[in-house]
């Protein structure tokens, strides 16, 4: 039986080397490109009719749009609208990465800490830059809660600093760990289907249930990633 973590193996498809750096086009890259294609084709095709009264596909596209727009508005507040394309791309990239990864034999790039870490650090750096651009040095007030006694500063500032710095880690580890664990669980339970022979229907029912659960988690984790990014953006725009 194949190891449950074999599905996370990076397999180069087109080897590319620039100098000493290996930037081969792998199964991971394939699914990232696939995500871009699926997102663009779906959203373009669904909106191609430009119907005043939307059809099924157009409704889905509009609902996704409005869902992300509302999430951004509610969590990041005023002045956040110009970051909407970024937040929307982030949501689509994570959501489709999670969902496409659930199809059999697929690769889930959101299970790789380096990918989620890349996105999280992008958010972290972007938010920090926005914060300093809007508030200048005043952004450092982030690390000292408003109204706290000055004497508590030596204690509070390191805590706030650590909490701020740990954002990209919690953001990326949460997503990658959720995806990895879900896929391992699916693989392990699925392994029992063949292993238990005639009684295999019991783990098979489990696989069906876990698959439903994983679809829910795929959407939920994409939402959490987006919401947290919006909240960080809110802190940068309006401080606490």
């Amino acid at each position, binding site marked *: 039986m194949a190891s449950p*973590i074999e599905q*996370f*193996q*990076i397999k*180069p498809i087109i080897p*590319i080397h620039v100098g000493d*750096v*290996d*930037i*081969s*086009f*792998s199964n*991971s*890259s394939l699914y*990232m*490109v696939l*995500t*871009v294609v699926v*997102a*663009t084709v779906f*959203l*373009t095709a669904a*909106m191609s009719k*430009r119907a*005043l009264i939307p059809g099924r596909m157009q409704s889905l*596209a*509009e609902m996704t*749009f*409005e869902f992300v727009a509302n999430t951004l508005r509610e969590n990041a507040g005023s002045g956040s609208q110009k970051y*909407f*394309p*970024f937040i*929307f*791309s982030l949501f*689509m*990239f994570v959501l489709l990465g999670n969902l496409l990864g659930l199809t059999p034999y697929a690769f889930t*790039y959101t*299970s*790789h*800490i*380096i*990918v989620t870490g*890349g*996105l999280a650090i*992008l958010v972290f750096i972007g938010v920090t830059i926005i914060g300093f651009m809007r508030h200048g040095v005043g952004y450092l007030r982030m690390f000292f809660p408003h109204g706290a006694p000055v004497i508590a500063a030596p204690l509070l500032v390191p805590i706030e600093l650590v909490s701020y710095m740990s954002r990209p880690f919690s953001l990326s580890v949460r997503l*990658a760990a959720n995806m*990895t664990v879900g896929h391992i669980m699916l693989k392990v339970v699925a392994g029992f289907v063949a292993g238990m022979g005639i009684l295999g229907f019991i783990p098979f029912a489990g696989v069906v249930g876990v698959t439903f659960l994983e679809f829910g988690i795929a959407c939920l984790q994409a939402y959490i990633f987006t919401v947290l990014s919006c909240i960080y953006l809110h802190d940068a725009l309006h401080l606490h």
Partner: protein
Amino acid sequence: MPHFDATSFPSQLFWLAVSFITLYLLMAKLVLPRIGDILEERQRRITDDLDMAERLKAETEAAIAVYEKALAEARAAATAEINRVMEANAAEAAARHAETDALLAAKIAESEERIHAARREALAEVNGIATDVAQAIVARVAEVETDAETIAPVVTAVAKERGL
């Protein structure tokens, strides 16, 4: 675990950057403005339709007000006309009533006159009959032939005496 295989990191980060930047550009320049336009147009259309509905409602209410006013005026005019006709009819009826009363009174008076005349006539005849009867009784009982001229004053006197 393959997750921590650092040799794959450059490739993954490179393709992450390529695909995410491509996705961002496609979303920002192509897909999102389109969806935004359609949603905005729909919102504008809904607002326009609501405005129009509001305007039409106001027009309807104005029309209803005009209609109610016209109805009230017509009702008042009708009531006035009915009152006028009823008063005219009542006056005419009273006039006719009076006329008929006068006519009937005249007829009653005339009839009474006739009745009195007839009575007087009848009473005059009674004297004659009484004279004849008296003449016949005298002829039978006393076997005396008398004439009317002698009997008549006697009958009249007796009648007067008895208050007839």
